[in-house]
């Protein structure tokens, strides 16, 4: 007897074999160690199916998930955005402010009087200065840890400290750095889930950039995403006379000579100047003319388009970010003819040409066609960065001319298929009782009738049979006509 295919053991365990076959494979296993081992492994796996099926779900932040769901779908919520007050964020802010105030008071008391209360009680009385038992040295101020940012994505013209640098992705952006964009855009990450993106024709200075505080000075437009920060960590953005303070949020600051606009996608930011301050909650914006004081009446809700716009401008962040990425990641340059939306490894990155930070390895790049559908542009191997090495580059082929008159080409395909050969391809599986199968292809034909490409994009056939079908389809001859690219499902 030949060896027992492993899936037959599963059938045997499920009682799907008749007694004779069951006995036969057991007899075989008794004399065949490899089949006995396979049986045991299948048995163990099958036993664990029940445990998997009864697996309870892990606990999740249910309330947070619920809030996000409501945010996405509730028309009620959207209506409420139009109203003036949104008590939840305000309550949150009030709690946060109370917490900050309490922490500040506690810290003040502690710094002003650094001895612990228990030690104070044991300290000698001040009337006896001649016999001090302990000399308390004042705490030495420790400089906060400096931060550094890494460029994650760059498009177009970008300058660092006034220079169009070629080693943009190999630089640490530290305090004092000035970033300026011409027609380009740059995304800089400086922590896990913390990043900013400077829009075209903007300038940003990292005036302070350390673990205790971040201060950015902006002229133009910057989109910022900040992970929640501890109460002692400050994050402010200066836009002219106005100061925007944040804790954890995503927002945009747009500042020019005449207007300052602050739009908040989620979280809460406070905008203040010498005359007053205003809190900008989720999905709201405040527009402040240069000669107007900061006041709540200048706030309005964001439209759906504006929220989407903010979402699309979210700075690019890499998970598990650290400065070690400088050594363990490399830039990938994606070149396109004209500006085209691209995806890398399935993640949409916006308009190329661009340079983007990726981990070493093979990456798939897709580019959107004129209809907005992403099509594979190729793959590229990115090596571990080395001194003097050129960045990996992928040139996205130019978009083919738009497709016309598909029906004529479709008809040519259907009539040109050699049905006898097709039947021969699937004969063996049909004999096994598997019918009703299909192959879905994508095919491009040029005006001369030559097949540009023919890909099997979906099938329920084994690969050998699918290849056989593909060969039959590839032999179809097309006449001259319009160029066409289309998808076709061939039922077998």
């Amino acid at each position, binding site marked *: 007897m*030949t*060896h*027992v*295919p*492993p*899936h037959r*053991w*599963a059938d045997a365990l499920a009682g799907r074999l008749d007694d004779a076959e069951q006995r036969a494979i057991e007899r075989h296993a008794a004399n065949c160690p*490899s*089949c006995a*081992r*396979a049986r045991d*492994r*299948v048995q*163990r*796996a099958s*036993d*664990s*199916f*029940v*445990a*998997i*099926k*009864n*697996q*309870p*779900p*892990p606990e*999740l*932040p*249910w309330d*947070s*998930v*619920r809030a*996000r*769901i*409501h945010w*996405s*779908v*509730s*028309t*009620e919520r959207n209506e409420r955005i139009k109203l003036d007050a949104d008590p939840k964020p305000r309550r949150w802010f009030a709690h946060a402010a109370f917490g900050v105030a309490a922490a500040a008071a506690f810290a003040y008391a502690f710094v002003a009087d650094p001895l612990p209360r228990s030690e104070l009680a044991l300290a000698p009385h001040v009337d006896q200065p001649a016999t001090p038992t302990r000399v308390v040295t004042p705490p030495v101020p420790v400089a906060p840890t400096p931060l550094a940012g890494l460029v994650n994505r760059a498009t177009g013209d970008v300058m660092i400290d006034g220079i169009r640098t070629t080693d943009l992705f190999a630089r640490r952006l530290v305090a004092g750095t000035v970033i300026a964009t011409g027609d380009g855009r740059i995304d800089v990450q400086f922590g896990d889930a913390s990043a900013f993106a400077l829009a075209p024709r903007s300038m940003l200075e990292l005036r302070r950039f350390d673990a205790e505080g971040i201060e950015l000075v902006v002229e133009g437009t910057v989109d910022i995403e900040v992970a929640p920060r501890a109460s002692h960590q400050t994050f402010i953005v200066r836009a002219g006379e106005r100061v925007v303070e944040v804790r954890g949020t995503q927002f945009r600051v747009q500042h020019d000579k005449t207007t300052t606009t602050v739009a908040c996608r989620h979280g809460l930011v406070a905008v203040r100047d010498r005359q007053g301050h205003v809190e900008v909650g989720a999905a709201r914006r405040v527009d402040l003319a240069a000669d107007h004081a900061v006041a709540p009446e200048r706030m309005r809700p964001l439209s759906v388009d504006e929220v989407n716009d903010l979402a699309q401008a979210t700075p690019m962040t890499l998970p598990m970010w650290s400065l070690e990425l400088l050594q363990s990641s490399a830039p990938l340059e994606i070149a396109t003819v004209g500006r085209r939306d691209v995806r890398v*490894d*399935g993640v949409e990155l916006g308009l190329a040409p661009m340079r983007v930070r990726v*981990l070493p*390895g093979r990456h*798939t790049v897709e580019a959107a066609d004129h209809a907005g559908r992403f099509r594979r542009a190729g793959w590229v191997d990115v090596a571990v960065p080395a001194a003097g090495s050129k960045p990996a580059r992928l040139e996205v082929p130019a978009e083919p001319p738009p497709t016309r008159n598909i029906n004529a080409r479709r008809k040519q395909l259907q009539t040109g298929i050699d049905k006898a050969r097709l039947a021969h391809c699937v004969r063996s599986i049909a004999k*096994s009782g*598997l*019918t*009703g*199968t*299909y192959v879905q292809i994508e095919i491009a034909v040029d005006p001369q009738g030559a097949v540009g490409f023919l890909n099997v994009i979906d099938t*329920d*056939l*084994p*690969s*050998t049979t699918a290849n056989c079908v593909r060969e039959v389809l590839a032999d179809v001859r097309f006449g001259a006509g319009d160029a066409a690219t289309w998808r076709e499902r061939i039922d077998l």
Partner: protein
Amino acid sequence: MLQRVKRETGPTTALASVDEADLIERCRAHERAAHDEFYHRFRRQVAGNLYRVIGDRVDLDDLVQEVFVIAFRGLERFRGDARLSTWLYRICVNVALGRIRTRKRRPPPIGGIDLDATANADPSLTERPETPQQSLERRRDQETVYRALEHLAPKKRIVLYLHEIEGLDLKEIAYLVDSNPVTVRTRLFYARREFYKILAGDDAVPPTEGDE
């Protein structure tokens, strides 16, 4: 139309069906309280379905959110052909399929498959409390199953999971994956061969006729 579903995870009584219809109507009217009730009623079921299909909890909350967002948006088109829980299960399957496809293009998470929570499996599964050794073995076995599933194409993986682990029949699976039973049968045929071959270990059995 789905006639019968073995896996009944939602409310099962006639009263519950009336409640369900009422709940759907109120959700369609964009009643916030109804949305909350819907969410509370099905959240664990949805999370459980997704967790078991995918085998790890990475981004599970995002996937749960996605399922409910799709459900709330699609309730207008829900005709009641199947139970609400079955319909939700179908959404879960599609969302999980999308997730598996996306993950295939990315490097696997550090630490491999997360089955930490398997240590908290239903105690009724075991007649007496597990020893640490037994618990470890059970977790290893489950990890082996998910590792083998990772090798399958997403569509095959889903079909195999629903049939072998959830115990659904071809019609039920066809409804859940929005396909026809013949296609499901074909997928299952090849998926089972691949899956058990991987489970048995490549060196265990020489290739048999018809294997790919």
